[in-house]
C-alpha cells in the first residue's frame, strides 16, 4: 500500500484524544440525591437496556475510530494494488483547424461538437482523474482534478493551422508518461500510428465527411506603373458530384460582377479578375480598398468560400525634393525617369525651410527626399529618403562589405565594388554595411518609412547606374508597403503579428472584425499578444491610424472535407467511470466523519453515552 500524502497519517494521532474523550464522557459520575425511591421505580427498565448500552458504548468508540481512519485515509490517499482505481491523467487536445468550422447537420459546427464531446468526456471521468486542455495555438489549461471546472473551461479553440498531432500529443504528454492524449478532431491523424496503437493517443472523431467547394489559392498583382489590379485565384472542388456556384466580385463590400461557375468532381480551375478603374468607373478603385471574390451560396465550410484581398492605392506618389542650392542632377534624372514611367506622379522641388509649412499638407502617399540637407528633428507620416545629410562620424573612403539583400530598397541592386569618397557612419538597421559601419540604414513603422544614406550621390561613382533601380524600389516600397506595420494578407490561423513597429510606442491596438473587436495593449511599439487570424477582413487600428488585413484559408487540405484513408483505429476512448468512482472520496469521508461527530456530540449532549 502506498499513500499519496503519507504525512496525512499523522491524523491517526487524534485517536488518543478520541479514546480519552470517549472514556471521559462514558465515565460514571457520583451524584447525591435526596432519595433513590423514585429513581429505583423508573430505572428498572433502564437496567434492562444495560447490555444494549454497553454495546452502544463500544460501538460509539468503534465508530469514532472508524471515522478517524476514514478521515486519515481521505487525507493520506491510500493506493492499494488491485483495489484502488488507478487515477489517470488525460490531455484533451481540441483540433482548431479550419475544417472544424464546417457546419454539420443540425447547424452546429464540428468545433462546437468537439467542445461538447470533450466536456462530456471530462465529466465522465472518475474522482481523482486529472485533465488538461490544450489547443494548437499553444494555449493550455494545466492539469486539474476539478473535472467540472475543467469541463466548463473547454471552449472553441481559435482557428489555427492543422496541428501536427504527434507534436501536440508529445507536448500534452510532456507532463508524464502516464498522460493519455485525447484528440477531438474531424479527421483521424495519419502520422501517429504508434501512439494510437499504444493507447497513448485516443481519438474522438466529430463530424461526417462532406462535399465542399472553395478557393485554394489566390494572389493579387500589379505591374509597376499599371493602374489596375489582377486577382488570380484557384477554385477547387472536393465533391464527388458536379457542383455549381455563382462567383461574386466585390470591392469595399459592393458587388461589381457576378458569374456562374460549374465544377466537375474534383476539378481544379484557375480564375482571374481585373480591378481596373476604367472598367468600374465611380468605384474609386484607384484609391485602394478591400476586394473579395465569394462563392454563393455558402456550403458547409464557409471560410474557403471567400477570397479576400487588400488593394493598395493605384495613384503613384508625389515626390518632393528638399535641397539647398541646386538639386543633384543624377537624382533629378532618375526621378524624372520614374515619373515618365508612371511610378511617380509628380516631382516637386522645395527648400528645406519650407518643410514645416508644407508638413500639414503631406500625407502617407507622399515621398520626401532630403538631398544633402538635414531632415527635421521629428519626421511625420510618409516615406523619407535622406541622402548625404551633413553630420558627425564622417569617414573617408569607406569600403562596402555587405548589404541587406532582402530589404525592399536593395532589390536587384548590387553594391559590390562601389567606391565611396566619404560617408557618414549611421546608426540603425543597416542597408549597406562598410567596414567602418553602416553607411545606409533603413527603418519602417506604421505610417513611416525612412531610408538614410550616409553619403551624397556625387561622392559615389559606381552607385550612379543603380540609382534608378534603388529609387524605383524605394518609391514602390515606401509609398505603400513600407508604411504598413502588418502585411496585407495572412493565412487563417496565422498570428496577426506586425512586421514592423506600430505607429505608437504605448497604447492600444484594436483588431476590428465584422462581429467583434479584440483589444491588445501596445508596449514599445509592439502588441502584447497576437490573436490568430480568422477568415475575412480585419481592421487593425492604432490611435488615428488603421490598416486593413485580408485573411484567407487557401488550404486545399483543410478544404477537403471528404473521407480520408483510414489511420490505425487505435484504442477507443476510456469508458465512463462508474458512479461511485465519481464521488469525491475525501469530501464524502469528511462528510461522514462530520456527521458521525455531530451525532456523537448530539447524543452526548442528550445524555446518551
Amino acid at each position: 500500500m502506498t499513500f499519496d500524502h503519507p504525512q496525512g497519517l499523522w491524523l491517526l494521532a487524534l485517536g488518543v484524544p478520541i479514546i480519552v474523550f470517549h472514556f471521559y464522557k462514558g465515565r460514571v459520575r457520583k451524584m447525591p440525591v435526596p432519595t433513590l425511591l423514585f429513581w429505583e421505580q423508573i430505572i428498572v427498565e433502564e437496567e434492562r437496556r444495560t447490555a444494549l448500552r454497553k454495546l452502544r458504548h463500544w460501538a460509539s468508540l468503534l465508530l469514532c475510530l472508524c471515522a478517524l481512519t476514514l478521515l486519515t485515509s481521505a487525507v493520506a490517499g491510500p493506493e492499494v494494488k488491485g483495489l484502488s482505481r488507478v487515477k489517470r491523467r488525460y490531455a484533451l487536445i481540441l483540433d482548431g483547424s479550419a475544417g472544424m468550422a464546417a457546419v454539420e447537420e443540425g447547424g452546429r459546427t464540428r468545433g462546437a461538437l468537439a467542445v461538447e464531446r470533450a466536456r462530456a468526456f471530462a465529466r465522465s471521468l472518475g474522482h481523482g482523474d486529472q485533465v488538461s486542455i490544450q489547443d494548437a495555438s499553444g494555449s493550455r489549461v494545466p492539469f486539474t482534478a476539478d473535472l467540472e471546472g475543467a469541463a466548463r473551461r473547454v471552449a472553441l479553440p481559435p482557428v489555427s493551422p492543422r496541428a501536427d498531432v504527434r507534436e501536440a500529443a508529445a507536448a500534452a504528454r510532456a507532463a508524464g508518461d502516464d498522460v493519455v492524449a485525447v484528440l477531438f478532431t474531424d479527421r483521424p491523424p495519419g502520422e501517429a500510428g504508434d501512439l494510437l496503437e499504444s493507447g497513448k493517443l485516443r481519438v474522438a472523431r466529430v463530424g461526417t465527411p462532406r462535399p465542399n467547394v472553395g478557393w485554394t489559392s489566390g494572389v493579387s498583382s500589379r505591374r509597376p506603373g499599371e493602374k489596375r489590379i489582377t486577382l488570380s485565384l484557384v477554385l477547387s472542388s472536393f465533391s464527388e458530384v458536379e457542383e455549381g456556384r455563382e462567383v461574386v466580385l466585390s470591392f469595399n463590400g459592393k458587388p461589381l460582377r457576378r458569374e456562374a461557375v460549374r465544377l466537375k468532381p474534383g476539378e481544379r480551375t484557375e480564375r482571374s479578375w481585373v480591378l481596373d478603374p476604367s472598367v468600374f468607373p465611380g468605384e474609386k478603385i484607384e484609391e485602394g480598398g478591400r476586394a473579395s471574390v465569394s462563392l454563393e451560396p455558402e456550403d458547409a465550410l464557409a471560410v474557403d468560400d471567400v477570397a479576400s484581398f487588400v488593394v493598395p492605392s493605384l495613384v503613384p506618389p508625389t515626390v518632393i525634393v528638399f535641397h539647398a542650392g541646386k538639386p543633384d542632377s543624377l537624382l533629378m534624372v532618375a526621378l524624372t525617369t520614374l515619373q515618365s514611367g508612371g511610378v511617380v506622379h509628380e516631382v516637386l522641388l522645395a527648400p528645406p525651410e519650407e518643410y514645416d509649412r508644407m508638413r500639414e499638407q503631406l500625407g502617407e502617399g507622399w515621398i520626401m527626399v532630403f538631398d544633402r540637407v538635414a531632415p527635421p528633428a521629428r519626421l511625420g507620416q510618409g516615406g523619407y529618403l535622406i541622402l548625404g545629410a551633413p553630420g558627425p562620424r564622417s569617414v573617408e573612403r569607406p569600403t562596402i562589405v555587405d548589404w541587406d539583400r532582402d530589404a525592399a530598397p536593395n532589390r536587384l541592386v548590387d553594391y559590390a565594388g562601389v567606391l565611396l569618397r566619404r560617408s557618414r557612419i549611421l546608426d540603425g538597421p543597416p542597408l549597406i554595411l562598410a567596414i567602418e559601419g553602416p553607411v545606409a540604414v533603413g527603418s519602417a513603422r506604421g505610417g513611416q518609412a525612412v531610408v538614410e544614406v550616409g553619403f551624397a550621390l556625387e561622392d559615389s561613382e559606381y552607385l550612379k547606374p543603380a540609382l534608378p533601380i534603388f529609387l524605383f524600389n524605394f518609391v514602390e516600397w515606401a509609398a505603400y508597403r513600407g508604411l504598413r506595420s502588418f502585411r496585407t494578407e495572412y493565412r487563417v490561423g496565422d498570428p496577426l503579428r506586425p512586421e514592423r513597429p506600430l505607429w505608437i510606442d504605448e497604447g492600444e491596438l484594436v483588431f476590428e472584425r465584422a462581429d467583434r473587436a479584440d483589444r491588445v495593449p501596445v508596449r514599445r511599439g509592439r502588441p502584447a499578444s497576437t490573436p490568430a487570424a480568422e477568415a475575412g477582413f480585419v481592421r487593425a487600428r492604432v490611435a488615428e491610424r488603421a490598416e486593413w488585413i485580408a485573411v484567407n484559408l487557401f488550404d486545399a487540405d483543410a478544404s477537403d472535407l471528404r473521407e480520408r484513408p483510414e489511420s490505425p483505429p487505435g484504442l477507443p476512448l476510456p469508458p465512463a467511470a462508474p458512479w461511485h468512482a465519481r464521488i469525491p472520496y475525501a469530501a464524502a469521508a469528511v462528510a461522514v466523519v462530520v456527521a458521525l461527530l455531530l451525532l456523537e456530540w448530539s447524543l452526548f449532549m442528550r445524555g446518551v453515552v
Partner: protein
Amino acid sequence: MGPMAFDAHFLKTLEALNLLARRTVVGDDRAERRTPRKGASIEFADYRRYVPGDEIRYIDWNVYARHGSLFVKEFSAEENVHAAILLDVSRSMDFGGKFQAARELAAAVGYIGLANYDTVSLHAFDGELRVLQPFLRGKSRIFDLLTSLETILPGGATDMRSAFRGGLPRLRGRSLVLILTDFYDLAGYPEAIRTLLARRFEVHVIHVVAHEELLPTARGRFNLLDLETGRARDVSLLPRTVEAYRQRFGRFCQEVEQFSRAHEVTYARVLADDPLDRRVIEVLRAGGILEHR
C-alpha cells in the same frame, strides 16, 4: 449554612402577618387572638340572661331599662396560640438548599408568631422529635430561635411516624403545628399527620422542594447516592429517564397535597431556590397558614 439575616423591610412585612388558626384555638395566656372563651377584652361578643353568680358589673342596664330583664354582656377573650414549628432535619433535606430554605421559613414563621405574642416552640425531627426551643414568647426571643436554627445540622433518616408518635406528648396542649419537610417518608407521613390530627392539633405543612429535585438537569451516566440510606445505583440520565422521574415526582407531590387537603391540613409547596420573600408569599398564597393582620 449561611446566616439568616432579615432586613428591616422584610421584618416589617413579617410583622404585618399573623399565624392563621382556622379553628379558634385556646391558649394559656392573653394575647392578640380571639378565643371561644369569653374574656375581659374590650371587644363585645354577645348577651346572655343573667344568672345568679354573674358579676353585676357586666349587667347591661340600658337593656334592663328597655326590656325589664337582666342581661349580662359577654366579651371575647384575646388569647395567644401555641405554634409548634417542626423542622425536618433528615439528610435528605441537605440537598439543593432545602435545609437552608426550611430554616429561613421556620425563622420567618417563628418571628411572625413571636411578634404576635404567640408562644412558639421549635422542634427538629428525623427519626425522633427533639425540642430545640420550648415555649418562646415575645419578639426578643427571636434570637434564641435563630441561634437554635443556625446551630442545627441535618442528619439521620426521616421517620415521621415514630418521631411524632414518640415526641408529641412532650408538646403542651392543643397547638398549631407547622411541619417543614420534604416528605421523604412516603410510608410514614400519612400516619404521622393523622396522629397529630387525632390529638386535635391544627396541622400545616410546608413541602420544601429543590429545583434540581423537581427538574434534574444532569445528563449522562451517574452513580446516584441516596443521602439518607447511603445506597447507590448506576443510572443513565437520558431525557426519557428524566421525564419519567419528573412525572413520578410530580405524582408524589400531588399525593401529598391531596392527602393534606383530604385531612384539612394546610399544604404549601415552596421551591428552595426561590428567595425567602417569594417563599413566604407562596405560603401566604396557599392560605390557611398566614394571614394579614
